[in-house]
Structures are given as C-alpha cells and as structure tokens.
C-alpha cells in the first residue's frame, strides 16, 4: 500500500513539477519519505547498467543508450543527469506501473561517484562501468582515493564490474571481486614512454605505495603499468582499442571493427570503448554498435561553433576544478595546428557552490598553448589575475598574453580585431557569458 501511494505521489509531483519547470529530485524525495525501501520493492528490468567515474559519465551513458535503443531495447535513463538517490527514485517510479513493475528492458544510470552507495543500498546494478578517477572538484570531492573509498561500499558481489584497465586506481576495484570485465587501449600513436602533465598521480602504486613502473602512458596516469613491489598491474582487456590514429580520427576495436571519430580526442576514445563494452555485455552485436558510434556526435553539446566579428570560434566546454577536462581541450587546440587565438575564462568557479579556490589552475598544463600556432592568449574574468599569474609560469612569451577583467571586454576586443580562428576554453558556469555575445552556428 505504501509502495502504491509513493508511486502515485511521485508521478503526480513529477507531472506538476514539469508544468512549473521544477527539477526531478523532489518527487523521488517525497516517495522515499513515504516508503523508504521502495527501490528494493519495485521490480526492475533484468539489465541495470550504472556508469560512474570522474570524467566522461554523461557522454558514455548517452552512447550506451543510443546503442541499446538501436538494437531494439527500451531504455530508461536519467538524461537530465539527476544522479543522486532522489533523482534515481523519480526516474524509476515515474517509469513504473502502479503495481510496482518498472517498464523497459534496461535501466541505465549515470551515477554520482560519491553517492552511489546510497542508491545501491536498495538495489544493485547488473553491470557497473567505472571510467576513471581523476582530480575533480577537490573542493567537494576530497581527492581520487577518497572517491574510491566512497564507491567501494556501493559494489555488490553479484555485480559485473566493467573497469578501465588502464587506470591503476580504478583497477583496484577488482581486488577480491569475482565478476570483472576490462576495457583498455593498446599502445598506439599517442603513447609515450615519458609522463606528461603537471602532476603525476600514477607515480605510486595505489595498492601498496611502491614506485610504479610504466611501459607507456596514454595521458596523465592512464597507461600500461606494473608495480614491482606488489605486482598490481594492467590486466589484459576483454574489450580493446587495438589501433588508434588520432590525427586521422580512426580507431579499431577488437582488431576488426573500424570506427571514425567525430571528436578527435583520447578521452572520446575511452568513452566510446566503455560504451562498446557495456553494449557488448548487454548482448548487442558488433555491426549494430559500430553503426551507432561511428562518427557519433554527442548531444550533450560540449563543443559550440560560433562567429564573433570576423572570427570563427569554437567553444570547448571544460570544467573548472578539473585539470584533466582542461588538458583535454588544450591538447585539442594544440593538435589542431591552426593559427589561432585562445581565450580562457575564469569568472565563477562553480555554479553550485561558492568558492574562491584557484589552486587547480596550477594542475592544468597551460604550457600546451606554448606553440607557434597559438598566436595570442586572452585571459579574462574575475580571476584573471590568478590566470595571468599561472601563465607567467608556462613559458608562453608575455607579449602573447592579453588580460581583461570581464568577458564582455574580451569579446568586444575580439570582435573588433583579428580574423584568426578562436578557441575558447571555459566551464559550464561561465560559458554563457560569452555565448550570449556571439552568433551561434547550428
């Protein structure tokens, strides 16, 4: 009876909420108050796939959904990104019959890495994809090992873990867990024997603290590693990118399926591979998966094309407090080899909470912009002085760097002069301050 009531209330609140434009967590919150163990009582589909990790969750989940739908499966997933227990409850209950049976073949969840254990106390995924653990929003997440410790209790022994073999910390989830599938990228054109980046979170073995040895790196601490002290090492992958040519935008999965990349970045390669692994484990055939992810353009729109004066511009959405997200975009600009101006905006550090914390600027490899093609670097926003100070330590000649206090001033200057390609790197929290001043291309 309580279950019935909770489902009715949830559906009703969701209906009213939609009319007045309210978010998706409140209905679930009420349902959980009425019937705290409702997520245990509802009958869920036979496939429950959860995705967590620091970066790439949203993109990976979107591609998994596209693959499953193309194969004819009905997929229920949290497209709005409400990934804490209340949002998950809303999603499940609004897609359930009043008798408590969820419709659909697959429940697909983007799961907040810190709160997964709250949702999975009541039910557990059949497949749990963990993409990577990086430094991300340290102001609220602590650090990658802290996040690891928060995810670990959410893992049920019956769940099949789908892990990034190339991430030494993520690989630790397999210790003492029976059902594990691995995905990874073989040595390829971007692999280096030297570590690149401002910091090295793979320097020590996450299992024992010994000095880690790498055969090669793909980026940051992702690569082929072995700890001589305890033997923790990169596992053989069940799903592999067997060749990759980023410049040509081509990769091969499992030695036979060729995929073209709409966005030529190593991070996109990992997201594609994670989606491929999940699709494969859900029984989708290779041809169907390849037809979906070949040249797949993400709907979550992190790249925006626009014009500003005589310039063509590309905004690459990054995340403040996430150096890997920044490095992704800076590498993209460097690899484009186009004469360009780069604009970096740091105005509000977060949309969700207040902080004046700028230490993360020092974790970003802004030195990637120290190349001939980058003709000018424009810095702007409230924290422009912190940015300028950081850039003083990149080796980029001072005469290439121009600072403005506001986004509007920077936009006006860019509109008035120059016709070079413009690359913009900033966060969701700041990007509209520029996009409102330019002409967007569809």
């Amino acid at each position, binding site marked *: 009876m309580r279950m019935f009531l909770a489902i009715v209330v949830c559906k009703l609140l969701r209906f009213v909420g939609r009319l007045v434009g309210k978010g998706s967590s409140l209905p679930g919150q009420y349902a959980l108050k009425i019937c705290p163990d409702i997520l245990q009582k509802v009958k869920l589909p036979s496939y429950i796939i959860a995705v967590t990790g620091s970066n790439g969750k949203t993109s990976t989940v979107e591609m998994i959904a596209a693959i499953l739908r193309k194969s004819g499966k009905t997929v229920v997933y949290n497209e709005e990104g409400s990934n804490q227990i209340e949002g998950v409850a809303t999603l499940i209950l609004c897609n359930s019959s009043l008798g408590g049976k969820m419709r659909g073949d697959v429940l697909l969840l983007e799961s907040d890495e810190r709160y997964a254990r709250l949702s999975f106390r009541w039910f557990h995924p059949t497949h749990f994809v963990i993409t990577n653990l990086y430094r991300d929003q340290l102001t609220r997440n*602590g650090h990658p090992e*802290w996040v690891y410790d928060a995810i670990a209790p959410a893992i049920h022994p019956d769940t099949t873990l789908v892990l990034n073999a190339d991430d030494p910390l993520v690989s630790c989830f397999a210790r003492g867990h029976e059902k594990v599938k691995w995905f990874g990228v073989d040595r390829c054109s971007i692999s280096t024997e030297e570590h690149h980046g401002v910091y090295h979170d793979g320097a020590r073995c996450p299992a024992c*603290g010994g000095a880690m040895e790498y055969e090669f790196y793909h980026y940051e601490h992702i690569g082929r590693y072995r700890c001589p002290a305890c033997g923790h090492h990169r596992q053989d992958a069940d799903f592999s990118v067997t060749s990759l040519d980023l410049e040509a935008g081509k990769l091969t999965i499992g030695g036979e399926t060729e995929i073209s990349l709409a966005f030529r970045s190593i991070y996109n390669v990992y997201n594609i591979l994670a989606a491929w692994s999940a699709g494969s484990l859900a029984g989708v055939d290779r041809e169907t998966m390849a037809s979906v992810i070949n040249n797949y353009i993400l709907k979550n729109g992190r790249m925006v094309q626009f014009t500003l004066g005589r310039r063509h511009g590309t905004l690459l959405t990054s995340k403040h407090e996430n150096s890997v997200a920044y490095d992704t975009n800076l590498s993209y600009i460097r690899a484009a080899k186009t004469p360009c101006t780069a604009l970096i905006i740091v105005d509000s550090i977060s949309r969700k909470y207040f902080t*004046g914390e*700028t*230490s993360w600027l020092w974790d970003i490899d802004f030195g990637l912009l120290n190349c001939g093609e980058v003709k000018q670097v424009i810095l702007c926003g409230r924290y422009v*002085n912190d940015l300028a*100070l950081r850039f*003083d330590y990149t080796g980029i000649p001072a005469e290439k760097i121009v600072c403005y206090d506001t986004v509007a001033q920077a936009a006006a200057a860019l509109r008035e002069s120059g016709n070079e390609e413009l690359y913009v790197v900033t966060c969701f929290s700041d990007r509209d301050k520029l996009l409102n001043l330019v002409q967007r291309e569809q």
Partner: protein
Amino acid sequence: MKVTILHLYPDVMNLYGEYANVAVLCRHLEALGVEADVQTAGEDADFSTADFIYMGAGTERKQKYVLAAAPRQAEGLRSAVERGAAVLFTGNAMETLGASVSSAAGKVWPGYALADFTTVETEKRSPADVVAVSTLWEAPAVGFMNKCSVTRGAATPLFSELSLGFGNEEEHGAEGYVSGNVFATHITGPILVKNPDFTDLLIRRLFARKNWTVPERLPVLPHEREAYAVTLRELRGRIGREG
C-alpha cells in the same frame, strides 16, 4: 648568492598544485639576484645543505608513506632546523611535523616530532575557504583547506583565528604552527602564490639566515597583489553573506 631549497616528496605530496610554492619562491629569489638551487627527494632526503625545506599536501594514504620514513628522517630534519633552515609544511604535511598521526580507526604513526602536537583523522572532510589572522604579518591570509583531521596541542599557532575555515581543533579557531623558522598550516595549494606577504616574510628569514642584508623594499611581481586583493574581496563578501 645561492639558496638551497629541498622539496620533499614532490611526486606524492602535491595534491593541490603545491609545486607552485617552490616555483614562486624561486621567482622572488631570482628577482633579488639570488640563485635558487631546488633539490627534490623522498625517503632518501639529505637535509645537510638545505636552507629551505618544503612539503605539500597529499592523500591520507600517501601521507602514511611519508610517515613510514619519518622516524628515521627526523634527526636529519631536526639538525637542519637547529642550523636555522626554514621549514614550510602545508596541508596534511603539517600533521607529519607533530608527535603522531592517528587514523580514524585508531592506528598510530609517529611523526617527525619537531613539535608536540598530535593529529587524529576523522571520517568526515571539512573543505573550506580560509581567511586567517596571522601572528606574523598584518594582512589577512587567504586560501583553501580540505582537511579530515583534528590537531591538538599546537601551542604556538601560525594564525590566531580564522574568520573562514577550520582551525586546528575547531571551526574559526587558531590554526597551524610556528616556531622560529618552522612554519606549518593546513591551508593547501599554492599558499605563497596567494599570499605575497607570507612569501616576503620567508625571503626575509632566508636572508637573515644567510647573514645577507635584507633590502628595504622587496620586489613586487606582476599580478600577485592584484590576485590576492580579488580573492580577499570575494571571501570577505562571503563572510558578510554568512554572518
């Protein structure tokens, strides 16, 4: 003129861009015509020639790797301090300077024992912006901390109180530790980048140790004072809204 800087565990105790503390100090020294010789070391550190010894913050586990070697390194560090070397430990590196660090589960690691304080880790993290009243310079210090511990028995704190942030034992309470040329604070990240007054104080101490004449006016490097002013303004605005 040369200053030898020993950066301890730069690969593991570098969670919040702490390497920038060493970089900015070098920049200031160079602006004064002083050569900065930066040495990096871990368990095998040689403290005998160091004028300035720095360690930044790490994860709780990585701090334990440091603590595992601390007892056998303690004598070397103590001698360096007795010779007048300046020491700055930030974030949870501060905890290692004390007598011990205990995990929330009760496991105890002895520290460098340069000070008497003891630290107990907690299950909860307390991330916080910081505005601090210094015992050594006039302007408020700004920064960020992300601690999951309580430190007791730091008799001579570096900051007498915090208008934002968690002190050694409680919110807004006294924070850090200072004794002679030994400085420690749980403020993480590039604290010297964010607080040019603190950098200037360290420069004066280093010059004094070397018996060099301290210039009346220390160099002001681009953007540092402006960045500090913006952060202080933003954080003060926050205090206003909260209080």
